[in-house]
């Protein structure tokens, strides 16, 4: 993974997109968080290799995704090299066997964008794939259960594309991991296999740390924003989601081994230019529970 300037990458992605579909793109993940919290600081960079682009809203995902993918391919963006997923599929290829749209810019292979989509309905809680037919072949767009939350009030950047709100990315990750699951990430970090839950919940801790650094009471604003988003996106189930939002994080904080993995991924990614000790990261988690998760749970009980 490489150090990237969030501002430079956003600018490059936006420039490669046709103007009419920039409004359909929301950048999520560490690059979005990096731009939000330290986009103005040329010294602060994010260490990542993937730039997650969500095509939004869901109803426009396929037509907009097609334009985005074709425009980038036209601009000589290349499909990421991969022995298994390196070529587009055909009409006969089953959707789950199609490659994701993972394209790196013409001038570098250090990073790539990945197109994603929000779930079709609140009931789609797992991982789903949608077929995306382009002039270059068939791809798939991936969606995750709580990804729709990042569509809440995205922040429009100066480049015409939007970034997801950090607190919504945090909430999506919290809900996606109600416990520490044993599944590991496909790649290694610092040569180590890391649980996916620890990486994603470590991201939540990093976001909490950065939010507090920007404004000491920032986390106290999150529960109201979270509750509104959950009511909008999950009108039937929002109280139970509020109740379980902190379960995985509490489990993480209770396990030294899992916290160590969370700390490693944070230090290797979003917080790469910060000197955070494991204890500081743990405090960020405890503050998040007190300031945001407990009030959210209380809202659900009212």
């Amino acid at each position, binding site marked *: 993974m490489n150090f990237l300037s969030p501002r430079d990458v956003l600018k490059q992605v936006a420039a490669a997109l046709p103007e009419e579909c920039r409004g359909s793109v929301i950048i999520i993940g560490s690059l979005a968080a990096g731009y939000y919290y330290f986009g103005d600081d040329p010294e602060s960079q994010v260490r990542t290799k993937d730039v997650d682009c969500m095509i939004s809203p869901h109803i426009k995902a396929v037509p907009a995704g097609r334009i985005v993918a074709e425009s980038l391919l036209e601009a000589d963006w290349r499909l990421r090299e991969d022995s298994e997923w390196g070529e587009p599929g055909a009409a006969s290829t089953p959707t789950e066997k199609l490659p994701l749209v993972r394209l790196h810019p013409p001038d570098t292979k250090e990073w790539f964008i990945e197109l994603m989509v929000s779930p079709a309905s609140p009931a789609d809680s797992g991982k789903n794939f949608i077929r995306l037919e382009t002039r270059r072949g068939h791809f798939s767009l991936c969606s995750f259960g709580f990804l729709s939350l990042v569509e809440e009030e995205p922040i429009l950047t100066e480049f015409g594309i939007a970034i997801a709100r950090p607190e919504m990315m945090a909430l999506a990750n919290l809900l996606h991991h109600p416990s520490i699951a044993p599944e590991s990430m496909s790649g290694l970090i610092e040569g180590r296999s890391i649980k996916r839950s620890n990486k994603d919940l470590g991201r939540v801790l990093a976001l909490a*740390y950065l939010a*507090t*650094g920007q404004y*000491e*009471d920032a986390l106290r604003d999150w529960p109201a924003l979270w509750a509104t988003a959950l009511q909008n996106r999950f009108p039937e189930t929002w109280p139970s989601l509020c109740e379980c939002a902190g379960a995985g994080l509490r489990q993480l904080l209770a396990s030294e081994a899992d916290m160590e993995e969370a700390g490693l991924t944070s230090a290797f990614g979003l917080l790469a230019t910060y000197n955070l000790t494991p204890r*500081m990261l743990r405090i960020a988690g405890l*503050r998040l529970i007190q300031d945001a998760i407990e009030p959210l749970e209380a809202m659900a009980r009212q």
Partner: protein
Amino acid sequence: MPPRLPTDRTKTDLGYEPDGRWRDVWVEVKPRTHSFRNVRASLLGMAYLLANEPGKRGLLVLANSRITEKRLKNELHLVERTLRPDVAQRLALVIEKDHGYVGIPDDLGEDFRAWLDALVRQETRDGKLRQSHYAVLQVLLHQWLLGKGPMTTDWIMKTIGCSYPTVASALRRLDHVLIRHSDRRVELRRFPSEDWARLVAMSDEARSTARFADRSGQKRSPEALLRRLMRLERADLAVGGVIGARHYHPDLDLAGTPRLDLSLHCPAKRVDWSFVERLDPALEKTERRDEPAALAVHLVRRKVPLFQPGEGGMQWADPVECLLDLHEAHLEAQAKELLHFFSGKRA
């Protein structure tokens, strides 16, 4: 250095409370105890506590005792034969004599000894008498600063929660600055500068101040801590220090607020420190005086806290506490200014 005491119900249900805690070591000081009957009751209480808390150790300190080292060793031998080994191994008996200690486990270093000295001073008769004297002085000062007029000995006794002889003794020592009215009520004649200076000099010990430092790298401001304090709705906590001083004297000449000072009312030995973690999980108690504290908590041991009700469930520490807080934070100029403010109001 304040004693840290058992806080949860399990400990209090034992009917036993040690006098202080140093990291993982509970300590009880037994002053002027010469018989093993009393010692054994404490040993048993400590053993109960240690059985409940597997990670902790216990130290029973006999101060000014005639018990010899030889008898102490015999008693320890009995303890080892009687108690469960995992409890007995964590229990130690110490004799304090001539400002030295016999029987302190080797791994407890100079920091512990300094802390133990303070605890022994606090728990011995002289220490308690001194504390009562300063408690009376603080109450007299409180009434004087706020211009409340004379008070009866009975009122002082009830406010502090002590006996008539204790108050009478303290009042005799303060006779040079007292007005004794014909109806036996008393009040300060003037600000007792010398007694005040002595109280300021030993206020750490008298008030058992605990300091907490930030460990997050993102220190919360005193105002942010205050906002969280208000959410706790604790009746035993009041705001003092700079913020409290500004409540009484809004024009206090100081830019910013260096830390949050709280007065914690705990007339019993037991101190409930759980609120600190609720104010900020980043706060950790520090014994280092050179480390900047984000929070200072001063124990108010008298029966009536003399807190003043504020808005939103908040309470204000009394002006004497605020003055002592300013001195403790080395804000001497501000302490002087606050004192002049009150004196000016009286004039």
